[in-house]
């Protein structure tokens, strides 16, 4: 399998506060990777650093064979790295359809068009003229995912797409994951819901306090190991 994304020794700072201490991670083409970890572990900071809305100059990040450390975020986006940001962050003065269309601004060609997104999330069709923020939480999350897909990314990063949603809605959203991967997009999800992450991912990274504390295939990891890596304590 060809390596799609690889970071080595990634660091990040908020002023004097260091949020990441040398994170190494690899995503191969066609994989679904999950990052799990407690509040404040640095998961979102990691994604923001990857996509360039946190400074990443001089960092060792290879994406699709290119060193993207220090590239402006819009250039990284056009190279095929898209993100569903934490909290969705739909544009509130844009309609659902406009939110989707703006995701295609980078001009990358591929299988994801308005029609393909509406096929993936049929719920959105009748809401297309509504303001993006006038939808249910689950539908908003679908718009956020669709918006990212519209750029036809090689790799889709999803930051806590299940947060605050009912289990039924979470299941509906996660049903899209294999369909997305089936169209040639690799996926990296950040999840606090460990069982969801283990169910969907081919490999898992666990983060704690800015470091990767455990990595492996779900079936090779025991509950004790995960609890240890997640909370930093011996399981009872």
């Amino acid at each position, binding site marked *: 399998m060809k390596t799609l994304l690889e970071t080595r020794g990634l660091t990040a700072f908020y002023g004097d506060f260091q949020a990441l201490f040398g994170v190494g991670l690899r995503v191969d083409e066609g994989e679904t990777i999950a990052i799990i970890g407690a509040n404040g572990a640095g998961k979102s900071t990691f994604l923001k650093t990857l996509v360039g809305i946190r400074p990443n100059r001089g960092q060792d990040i290879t994406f699709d064979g290119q060193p993207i450390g220090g590239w402006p975020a819009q250039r990284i*986006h056009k190279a095929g790295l898209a993100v569903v940001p934490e909290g969705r962050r739909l*544009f*509130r*003065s*844009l309609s659902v359809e406009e939110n989707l*269309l*703006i995701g295609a*601004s*980078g001009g990358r060609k591929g299988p994801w068009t308005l029609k393909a997104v509406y096929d993936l999330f049929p719920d959105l069709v009748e809401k297309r003229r509504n303001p993006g923020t006038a939808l249910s939480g689950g539908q908003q999350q679908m718009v956020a995912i669709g918006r990212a897909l519209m750029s036809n990314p090689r790799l889709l990063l999803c930051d806590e797409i299940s947060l605050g949603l009912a289990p039924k809605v979470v299941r509906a959203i996660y049903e899209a994951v294999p369909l997305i991967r089936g169209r040639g997009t690799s996926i990296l999800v950040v999840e606090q819901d460990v069982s969801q992450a283990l169910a969907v991912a081919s490999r898992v990274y666990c983060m704690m306090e800015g470091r990767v504390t455990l990595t492996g295939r779900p079936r090779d990891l025991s509950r004790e190991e995960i609890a240890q890596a997640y909370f930093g304590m011996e399981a009872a």
Partner: protein
Amino acid sequence: MVWVNAIIQGVLLGGLYALFAAGLSLMFGVMRFVNIAHGDFIVVAAYLALTVMVSLGISPWVAVPVVVAVMAATGYLGQRLLLNRVLGKDILPPILVTFGLSIILQNALLETFSADSVRLPAGALETASLTLGDGIAIGILPLAMFATAIGVIAGLQLIFYRTPLGRMLRATSDDAEIVPLMGGNNAHIFAIATGLASAVVGVAGIWLAMRTNFDPAAGPVRLLFAFEAVIIGGLGNIWATLAGGIILGVAQTVGAQIDAGFQILAGHLVFLLILIVKPTGLMPRMTG
């Protein structure tokens, strides 16, 4: 009849104020950026129009597009090269920098054009008017000015709600931080916004030059009128800016009808009244 006349004149004057205000409102809407030098840019455009048409004798059909294009290009470059550097979470640096720019522009105009007040002659148009029944005459020039304002605002509305550029500008207004994650370049989008606003400033400057005498110190008062129109109408809604301009214009002409010295004060009083009664303006932005 004098009252009806005053109101009509006020409405038409409101078109000019809406032109003053549109650029200010646009820049604030997209970037949360308050340009203190806005009025001075209007005056710069007025002098530019005067220079191109009177000193160089170029026909208005060529001169108007040239003035608008020069202003737009200057706006784009000024944002890209200077103002983008001071944009950030803190709103104070842009205010300080544009305040400084305001003083620099006034002094540069004073050096170049002297303190004498000037006006752009509009020839026969200046006195032409439409007579509507008993005692009411509408000047062609104010009417054309009002029509220009409607056209400019409709054009901005079209750009904002019917084009991919407008979509990007509205998205930037909502949440600029994540616009790069859609492939947009913040520096470029901000500069486009200022370029658009400056094109409107060009149009406003030409009308200012034809309507009144102006001098290098005329900017701050135009800024004040623009502010008042924006606040009266409500931020972030371009038709509301027209409404704000009209209310301000009518307040002034009706005030002048009461007493010639009362014109400007009447405008300020109405502004204060609306600020007290409805601080968000009469037609604030809809939020989802």
